[in-house]
């Protein structure tokens, strides 16, 4: 469904992605794990078109994305819950969700999707008229994910959805990610919390300073020596 081939991305002179290649098949949860500053967010931002790759190609079901502007990429079914959540602080929860459906052409499905989001995140329904900026961190994460789902994306990119959340909330968010996937959405999940990510993913990639150093099924990665040492904190 989504394929990156030898993608290089720069911030000025900083070579942040040094030839990333990865694949996400339809219906999968694929996780991209790596330590802080490895290039995980840059990968997602590059897929989305927020950052331009200097070379390499990004294909969504065979169609090249790398030269399209971000809003065109969104129109083709790529949605993201970005790092730092980036909800609209002075818009209500409802307005944030409406913005999520901005790229949608079929307005008829809006109510259906809204109900689906509220089923996944009942808290959002309780907060519907509250301003995004007044929500708690966990609620903002739910809103960011709900907003991305309102686009009814073909592929959902999640950037560290567990960041800054209490262990109970992390559990909840990961359960919801699995539900979303079971309901038919393909997911590329970026995490520093490698243990959680590998326990729900089908496959995983390990990224180090802008390069993919390892890829395998999630269960094999979990058992891998290097992964255990560096990312799971198990000696």
């Amino acid at each position, binding site marked *: 469904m989504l394929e990156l081939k030898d993608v290089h991305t720069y911030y000025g002179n900083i070579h942040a992605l040094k030839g990333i290649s990865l694949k996400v098949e339809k219906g999968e949860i694929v996780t991209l794990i790596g330590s802080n500053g490895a290039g995980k967010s840059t990968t997602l931002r590059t897929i*989305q*078109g*927020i950052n331009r790759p200097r070379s390499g190609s990004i294909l969504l079901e065979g169609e090249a994305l790398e030269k399209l*502007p*971000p*809003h065109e990429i*969104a*129109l083709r079914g790529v*949605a*993201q819950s*970005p790092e*730092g959540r*980036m*909800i*609209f*602080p*002075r*818009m209500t929860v409802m*307005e944030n969700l*409406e*913005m*999520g459906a*901005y*790229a949608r052409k079929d307005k008829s499905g809006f109510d259906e999707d809204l109900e689906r989001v509220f089923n996944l995140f009942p808290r959002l329904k309780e907060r519907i008229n509250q301003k995004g*900026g007044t929500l708690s961190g966990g609620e903002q994460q739910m809103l960011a994910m709900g*907003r991305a789902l309102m*686009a009814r994306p073909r592929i959902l990119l999640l950037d560290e959805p567990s960041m800054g959340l209490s262990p109970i909330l992390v559990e909840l968010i990961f359960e919801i990610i699995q539900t979303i996937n079971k309901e038919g959405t393909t997911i590329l999940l970026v995490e520093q919390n490698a243990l959680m990510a590998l326990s729900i993913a089908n496959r995983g990639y390990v990224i180090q300073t802008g390069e993919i150093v390892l890829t395998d099924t999630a269960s094999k990665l979990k058992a891998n020596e290097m992964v255990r040492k560096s990312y799971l904190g198990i000696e």
Partner: protein
Amino acid sequence: MSAKAKSILRGIVVAAVVLYIAFLLGPIAGFDVPAIAASIQADPKQLIQFLIIGISNGAIIAIIALGYTMVYGIIELINFAHGDVYMIGVFTSLTVLSLTGTLNTNDPVKIILGLALALVVSIASCAMLNATIERLAYRRLRNAPRLAPLISAIGMSFIIENLGLIWASQSWLVPSFGTTGGASQKFFPDLLGTIFTVNGWKVNLFEYFGIPLRFTIKDLLVIVLAVILMVGLYLFVQRTRLGKAMRATAQNRDAAKMLGIDIDRVISATFLIGGGLAGAAGLMAGLYNNTAWWFMGFRAGLESFTAAVLGGIGNITGAMLGGFLIGLLASFSDGYLNARWTHAWVFATLVLVLLFRPSGLLGEQVGQKA
């Protein structure tokens, strides 16, 4: 010390500084408290008259301030050419009125049709001009260091002022009424006064009802038109798809892009709307103050930029509030202090707000970008 005590203390210090400056500069600038008190006592209804003038001028300032604040809200740029776009609006209106023969008729129907056409043409041309400025001078500098678009903006301002100078010198476009050259102030006839004159008496709404104050049709028109534009803008920004996309882009540009918003289009639309408002303000101000001058965008720019900052730059309601406050300040300064110093008071307000309350009266907007 608690934060509250600190802010109270700071308030006292600010008040002391303001009073000190006022009394130091006061006598020069006509800030002579006993004399003012005496003149208010001698003619208290004058105070209300200045209030009316202040509100009418404030309405115009507010409409221009909206253009500054909307653009700042969305790309964090002070569009220094905005006051000059408004000046072009004044000249566009005058030229349309002149070419359609509206200036030489007493027929109320023709005058009203002429004014309606002038309003539409002025709004459309200023909208296009402002969007063109963005396209030419700001768009490619969007990711440049902040000083670059600012300098580009000042350059645009000079270019448009000179355009105004050339325009004003074309007597087939701008009736000279005896003035010579493009640099002189041109007369913008009081067309509403012409329509609503009965037996040589200009219709005065208050006097009609036995109130000894001047509140003419043009005050009414300016205020009504301003309110319509403000309410319209507010509804547009709150309710429509494009309005919501604008707010989203202002609050988080990357998130807006990710959701499928074409931010180039949204930014163009913002400049179109800001320019259109300046165009409307151009006709309003021409009719109200009866002058057209190539340099008038400077004063209007200073006043409305101050209004936008006072209200909280980026905040639409703030710009409206700030507009009326600056209109009142200017009117009272013109009336009771010394008209020559009005600019200085406005500028002092700008400096004080920037020093002590940069986020303005209503603005939580600035610095809140997450």
